[in-house]
């Protein structure tokens, strides 16, 4: 099990979901997921006839890499060292935080810039560095907004999808000191221009730049990031030290393999053919390079992932964090990302979060799915997300976690389902009685012990006799 000291789900899913459903601003913001991402991905996929074939190829690449992960990690590390960098293995979140802090201290860092990194969110890195007296500046626009709000990301690629621009303008007015309070912040370009000016100071003053990695390439020892803002490039190249923080499953064997995955990633995530910036970093600046860091470190995080290798949840390690499953999930679309109480929300989070923090900590996540299957349909890595969620439900059930009433109802039903004679005898008595109880009304507005249904819906009444009873009596027709 992973280190759960930081960032483990803390809120009750049910309470958070209820709040989310009642939050009108959030509901309005969530419409952007539907209107934006889904249509854009569909268009990008339709323009690429070989999309399905590419998906098979990418899946095969990841499956192969995971089957030989130890070999590729060794090969990758050798290449990083060859190019003048260092690799640090972090078994847990605590280890990763400590390693990054030590590297920052060794570099004499007072100010650290950061590109967007979900692994950094996973290990709670910002708080750890700030507590040690190091200033951290998030440079991705969304992450910058979250940082000045003290907020958390609600989507793995669109961290502020839960906010609207009016809220963000108010945050900027409050947090960006020394600017005229009545400056215009009404449009998105206004907000971007101001963030750019504020962040420029940070880029120029930073001692260490920390980025995540969308991919690590064993063949070359490179780390790859994809961004649309260019902030990642400035974070990687301007400071004296560049630290890459990535989890072990980001590895692919070759540059060619990386290209295959990248073609799927941007299309699945934002519907772009390729992101505005796709940046490969290989070691520190070489002699004669006009710019680039003097030191290059890679911190490789395990945090429960190697335990997933070869387990029932192995397939989840193929995930490339494109967010397509979130965008197409009707549950995510109804409650947003925060309600999941995890850095990783939506279907991918419902599988990954219990693997990182334990099923007892996150039992609602794999349970809160209608198994509609859209996540699996759109996943560019063909991860069978509903089947994996079901595996968590099985573990949850075996541990006796579901509420007593649910287990009782389920066991009672199964008891009858396994005994056809008793089932037919009992249903033959009960259903006509229920129909009589409903009278001519045809529905129940309330029903004993069925409040979970009738709280928000009427219960259509049964017709009367069961099908089997009527059929056995020889009624060919009603």
């Amino acid at each position, binding site marked *: 099990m992973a280190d759960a000291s930081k960032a483990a789900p803390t809120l009750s899913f049910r309470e958070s979901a209820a709040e989310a459903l009642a939050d009108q601003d959030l509901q309005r913001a969530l419409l952007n997921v539907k209107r934006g991402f889904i249509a854009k991905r569909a268009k990008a996929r339709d323009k690429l006839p070989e999309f399905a074939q590419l998906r098979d190829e990418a899946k095969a690449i990841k499956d192969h890499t995971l089957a030989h992960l130890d070999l590729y990690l060794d090969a990758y590390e050798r290449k990083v060292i060859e190019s003048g960098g260092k690799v640090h293995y972090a078994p847990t979140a605590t280890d990763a935080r400590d390693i990054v802090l030590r590297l920052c201290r060794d570099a004499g860092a007072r100010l650290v810039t950061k590109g967007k990194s979900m692994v950094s969110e996973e290990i709670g890195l910002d708080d750890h560095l700030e507590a040690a007296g190091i200033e951290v500046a998030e440079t991705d626009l969304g992450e910058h907004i979250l940082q000045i709000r003290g907020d958390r990301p609600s989507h793995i690629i669109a961290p502020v999808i839960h906010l609207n621009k009016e809220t963000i303008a108010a945050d900027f007015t409050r947090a960006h000191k020394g600017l005229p309070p009545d400056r215009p912040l009404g449009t998105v370009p206004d907000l971007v221009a101001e963030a750019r000016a504020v962040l420029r100071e940070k880029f120029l003053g930073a001692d260490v730049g920390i980025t995540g990695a969308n991919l690590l390439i064993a063949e070359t020892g490179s780390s790859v990031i994809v961004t649309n803002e260019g902030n990642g490039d400035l974070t990687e190249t301007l400071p004296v030290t560049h630290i890459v923080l990535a989890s072990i499953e980001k590895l692919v064997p070759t540059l060619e393999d990386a290209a295959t995955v990248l073609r799927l990633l941007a299309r699945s995530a934002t519907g772009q053919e390729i992101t505005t910036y796709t940046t490969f970093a290989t070691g520190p600046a070489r002699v004669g390079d006009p710019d680039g860091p003097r030191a290059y470190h890679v911190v490789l995080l395990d945090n429960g992932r190697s335990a997933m290798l070869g387990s029932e949840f192995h397939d989840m390690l193929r995930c490339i964090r494109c967010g397509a499953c979130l965008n197409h999930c009707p549950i995510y679309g109804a409650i947003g990302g925060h309600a999941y109480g995890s850095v990783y929300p939506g279907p991918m989070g419902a599988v990954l979060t219990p693997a990182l923090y334990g099923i007892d900590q996150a039992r609602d996540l794999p349970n809160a799915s209608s198994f509609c299957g859209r996540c699996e349909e759109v996943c560019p890595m063909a991860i069978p997300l509903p089947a994996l969620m079901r595996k968590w439900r099985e573990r949850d059930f075996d541990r006796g976690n579901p509420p007593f009433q649910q287990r009782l109802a389920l066991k009672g039903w199964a008891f009858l389902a396994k005994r056809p004679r008793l089932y037919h005898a009992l249903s033959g008595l009960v259903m006509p009685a229920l129909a009589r109880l409903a009278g001519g009304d045809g529905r129940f507005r309330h029903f004993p012990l069925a409040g979970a249904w009738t709280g928000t819906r009427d219960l259509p009444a049964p017709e009367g006799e069961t099908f*089997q009873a009527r059929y056995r009596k020889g009624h060919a027709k009603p």
Partner: protein
Amino acid sequence: MTEKRAGTPTSPHVALFVTCLVNLFRPSVGFAALKLLQDAGARVEVPLEQTCCGQPAYNSGDRTDAIAIARQVVETFERFDYVVAPSGSCAGMIKRHYPELLSDDPALASRAKALAAKTYELTSFLVEVLGVIGVDAQFPATVTYHDSCSSLRELNISDAPRRLLAGVDGLTLKEMDEREVCCGFGGAFAVKYPEISTTMAEAKIRNIAASGATCVLAADLGCLLHLAGRLSRDGSPITCRHVAEVLAGMTETPALGQPQKPE
């Protein structure tokens, strides 16, 4: 029973998997399915040993009971040429999930695979296996068709019900937006997370209403009970019926959750 239009001994021998919701809540769907199959020339039998496909247990993590129920279904139904269910969800359970569920026992696993190969959802069976091209029914109404997630994504069915509906006299089909989105039923999900489930129903109902339809048809009673329950709670005049009732011309029974007699 008297089988007026039963097939000849060479006709395919079809077992009707009634499904528990149809058996308990809406027997007329079962009789409509019988009529459609018999009209298309099938010899239909309804085994009494059937109860449920085991999906509630399977999706709730109770694998032991799910396996026991699946084994019982395999034993009951494997002797037929075909197994047909008026539900994409139950057919999908047998077709897509039994082979994995019973994979621990190699002998049973191959029987589960054989059963999966001959199990069908009703509308797709009528069109694809029996070659039905028209039905003898009328339903003068503007309807919309709700694809259940299991029909659509587990079984890849979307044309078959629409092709059959095209032959119903007086019926106009208006497609809704976001056809491929879940209605929020999801079996036990509907009662485990009722607020989320109902929010999803509301979104679906907005699309249904915007289509201009006065009646929603679907091949899965679970979705229909959920949608009918919410429509009725909202006081909406839009009604819900199983597609088999309309295709069989058996619409004397009030729509789901509607009063027995006009008020």
